[in-house]
């Protein structure tokens, strides 16, 4: 009986290891790996790009929808909010990244 259990579980184990079928996970890739290597490689810079910590992102809504970008957003952002969807948009050359998760920040 024990032998049967061992054989069945060995077969199952080899099946699981040889096939990776349920490939839908969304475990978080930490930005820390990139951040740390970037810091190690070039003191807050990767090549010519600057690595910047982002505090908060606010969707830039289109004029005519609720909660349009406020005047505080600055002229260029207000201009972007006024553009019809589909016109090319400006993006910063800075490399924005989130900070570490709270548990990692304590390590």
């Amino acid at each position: 009986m024990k032998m049967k259990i061992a054989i069945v579980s060995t077969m199952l184990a080899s099946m699981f290891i040889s096939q990776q079928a349920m490939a839908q996970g969304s475990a978080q890739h930490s930005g820390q790996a990139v951040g740390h290597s970037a810091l190690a490689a070039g003191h807050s810079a990767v090549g010519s790009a600057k690595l910047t910590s982002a505090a908060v992102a606010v969707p830039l809504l289109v004029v005519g929808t609720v909660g349009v970008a406020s005047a505080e957003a600055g002229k260029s952002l207000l201009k972007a909010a006024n553009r019809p969807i589909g016109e090319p948009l400006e993006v910063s050359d800075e490399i924005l990244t989130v900070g570490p998760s709270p548990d990692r920040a304590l390590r």
Partner: protein
Amino acid sequence: MKLKFIHGMTVTMMILGLAATAEAGSAANAEPQFNAEEIVSFSKKVEKTVASKGARVFILARVGRPANELPEGIHFTHTAIGVYSMIKTADGRDVPGYAIYNLYQRDNKPDMSDLVVDYPVDFFAGVFQLKAGVVIPKPEVQQRLLQVIASNTYKELHNPSYSVIANPYNSKFQNCTEHTLDVINAAIYQTNDVKVIKSNTRAYFDAQKVHVSPLKLLAGSIFMPDVKTSDQKRGIETSTYTTIAGYLNKYDLVQEQLVITQ
């Protein structure tokens, strides 16, 4: 004694094997496959490509496992929504860029999830291929998506009970693609009523059938907290980036669909 040891080892191997399987989007501590410069360069390429096309909102997918380990019909392992945003930096400046709205499994409790906003370089860190799936919806859909994302509905649609193979036709469990699909249908139908969203999903959305042996499934549901089958009725059906793209294409809601590589 020897048998007990072998049995114990095989059970451990089973759990390890399934863990590798289920963490298909790659674990938080996964060894990076590409160096930092490659990740930064690729993520900026994706950002600039969608910006050049004027996308305010787009569906974004990444490959978190080696291609030869992905089951038939699944080409990407994690799906999220990119939103053109005003990003306030830690030093107080406002800069334009894309924020990525994700549903991520918790590191220490994989059967639960959180909504997390991050940025392209975070999104692509640890991928197995420098490849991004992008669907830019038509402007009217983008506008409606923006309204949902800026409202409480985006958070209200989150079900933290996670299953890697969640059935998109009901609300028992949810994964990253199902939350994305729920947000899309909330936008299309301009509703926050989950019953309406699921009713329309059942009527119009074609899920991906996942072919997994019953034995493997049984063991998975026993040993892996994020593999659940109690929400499934006709085999295993789940939502994927490809089926979401197919759904939007079928009803002529796509402005442009592209795959961006290095």
